[in-house]
């Protein structure tokens, strides 16, 4: 246990420079690189005093090193500033907090799809190695990765939304009045907690297509990972031993081997989190899903620079904390990793 504690401490400390680098990168992109965010955010022809006033309120008139210091200081206090447009003076942190549950709900549902499809098909491919199914699934891994995730979403919308009319093509729920009482912000969870069954049905229907889109997009990577991990595990002695004891092949493959192959896959789940977030931005835009990604894109059209900066920083923090979490989980599951 002592070694686990030490590992946790070390790993957590290692996250700090990573966050520092990412946060600095955001600063460089948004403040040091060419392009004046304030001028872009307001209508042309605005009086110079007004521009100066905004620049002053954002601290953009100070030297860069002072700006950088203030930026880091504000972040330490979780102060992400206030919005510029379309409405001036709203708290960016609050806006992000409002949009976060939608992204979380979509991501969790997509990960469920990915896990079921990716791991299931990957294990199947490994089981039937060098068969037609194996080659097709390997090809699937490449093809699905080459399909733009938003186009996959558009095609789903066309087929299941427009042609068949089975599923709604936009939003999280039919109308805001139908939304369940706010507890966690996840509509599906909230409607279960409040026993609001019509809202549950409505939000699940809205969730299916975006979750399938994002989930299938990520599944390709997992088919490949699961397959190669399974192939390694299937060569191990304990598998041979299990076979020798006369345990049915299906049980050996899908219970004994898969369980062991899953451990490295959990790490991969962490690494693919960045892919998930990037995919979520596009999926949210496709399905008008009111999450963080759509918030970011919407604010880019308004040139609302504090919101852009805040959202990107939050994405960076999310990535760093998920990778930390996954490593801790990994160390906890697999004691060999605690070096």
């Amino acid at each position, binding site marked *: 246990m002592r070694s686990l504690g030490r590992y946790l401490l070390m790993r957590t400390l290692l996250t700090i420079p990573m966050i520092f680098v990412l946060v600095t990168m955001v600063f460089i992109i948004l403040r040091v690189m060419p392009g004046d965010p304030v001028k872009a955010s307001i209508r042309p022809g605005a009086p110079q005093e007004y521009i100066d006033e905004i620049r002053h309120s954002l601290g953009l008139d100070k030297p860069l090193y002072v700006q950088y210091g203030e930026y880091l200081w504000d972040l330490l206090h979780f102060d992400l500033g206030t919005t510029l447009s379309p409405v001036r003076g709203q708290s960016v942190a609050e806006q992000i907090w409002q949009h976060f549950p939608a992204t979380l709900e979509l991501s969790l549902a997509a990960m469920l799809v990915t896990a079921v499809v990716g791991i299931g098909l990957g294990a199947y491919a490994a089981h039937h190695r060098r068969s037609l199914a194996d080659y097709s699934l390997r090809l699937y891994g*490449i093809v699905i990765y080459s*399909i*733009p995730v938003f186009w996959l979403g558009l095609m789903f919308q066309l087929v299941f939304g427009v042609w068949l009319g089975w599923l709604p093509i936009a939003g999280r729920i039919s109308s805001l009045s139908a939304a369940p009482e706010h507890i966690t912000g996840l509509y599906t969870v909230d409607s279960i907690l409040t026993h609001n069954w019509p809202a549950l049905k409505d939000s699940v229907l809205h969730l299916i297509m975006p979750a399938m889109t994002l989930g299938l997009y990520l599944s390709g990577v997992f088919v490949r990972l699961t397959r190669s991990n399974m192939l390694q595990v299937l060569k191990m002695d304990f598998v041979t031993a299990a076979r020798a004891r006369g345990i049915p092949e299906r049980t050996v493959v899908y219970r004994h081997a898969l369980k062991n192959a899953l451990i490295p896959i959990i790490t991969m789940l962490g690494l693919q989190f960045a892919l998930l977030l990037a995919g979520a931005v*596009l999926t949210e835009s496709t399905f008008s899903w009111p999450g963080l990604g759509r918030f970011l894109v919407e604010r880019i059209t308004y040139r609302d620079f504090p919101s852009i900066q805040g959202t990107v920083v939050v994405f960076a923090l999310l990535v760093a904390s998920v990778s930390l979490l996954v490593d801790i989980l990994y160390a906890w599951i697999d004691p060999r990793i605690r070096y």
Partner: protein
Amino acid sequence: MKTNQKTKKLAEEPTSLLGRLLRGASWYGAEWYWTATGAVILAIIILVTIFAPVLSPYDPIVTVGGPFERPGGGQVVLLAPKDSGITSPEGLKVAVYYNTTASVVAEDYGMTPRPYQVDKDLFEKVRAGEAQAVLISARDAAEALQKNPDFVQVGEPFGPRFWLGTDNLGRDILSRLIWGARAVLAVAILSALFSAAVGIPLGLLSGFFGGWMDRILSLVMDSIYSFPGLILAIAVAAMLGTGVINIAIAISVVYIPTYFRMTRSQVLSIKEELYVEAARALGAKQREILGMYIFPNVVPTLVVVFSLNVADAILTEAGLAFLGLGLQPPTPDWGFDLNKGKAYLPRGYWWPITFPGLMITLVALGFSLLGEGLGEILNPRLTEE
């Protein structure tokens, strides 16, 4: 047949390039076919980009479209009597106002214009049998249809003239696809070259010399690598603005760490090889070791990385363009065309969103297959069975 081929392979070395290539198939199996498929797809795409002016039937940025509901000014709409059963403009005799866009455009659609003075009622002329349908500007169409409920709009975006239909502005989709290949490939390859030009030298130096610079660079690169690439590109593109070079830079920032990490890890392992040790013992300078012994052995891996990187860059470019951060309109850009087509999806207009997406997939797939296949062929040690 198969055994015969195998003995032949051992017996004589095929000297022609084609012979050697074909022999590759029996050596490498599935991977060879992947590479070949990728190469064929790319060869076709590259030919298309080269011969775009010849292949493209229309100017991609000019409204040439058939009578298809098109928002914006300057377009024409074909209105026909409800019971006429007219579905295509080909060969129609249409009533138009004298000296208007409609009268000029009618012949382009293969229609015969019958011009009238502006004070005449075109619909009456059709009812009187002087023409089969009315061709008027899209702006006036809604009002005219209200006044003449016995007429309907002929929504025919396809026809022998427009194989893949026309988009919301009446531009030929096929032409936009063909010209779009140029723009997309230019951005993707340019960005991959930018990333390679920064990432490879840094990776070489970092891996070869090590020390504190290596540690810092690795930390920075690993951090960027862990960050969602598209979001990084969005931030850069939002600040830099649109245009081929700006978008290429925005995308290249994302992939510098890929080259850096790959080069560095390769250098670290090659550095320990015996032949490097031998060169050092023979008194080779650091520069020579890096340039003549290490770098050439990193190249095969980098070829694979480059190919996969271009595939990624195409998808990232499409994603940026879909979010409205692509090339400057009206430049044909597949991602942006999907963005525009999305608005017409609820009405069931499937063609503006289907074909550009297919093209993105096809080109990205071509580079992916090529990269994957080459990876397995050039680095068989990396292949996990």
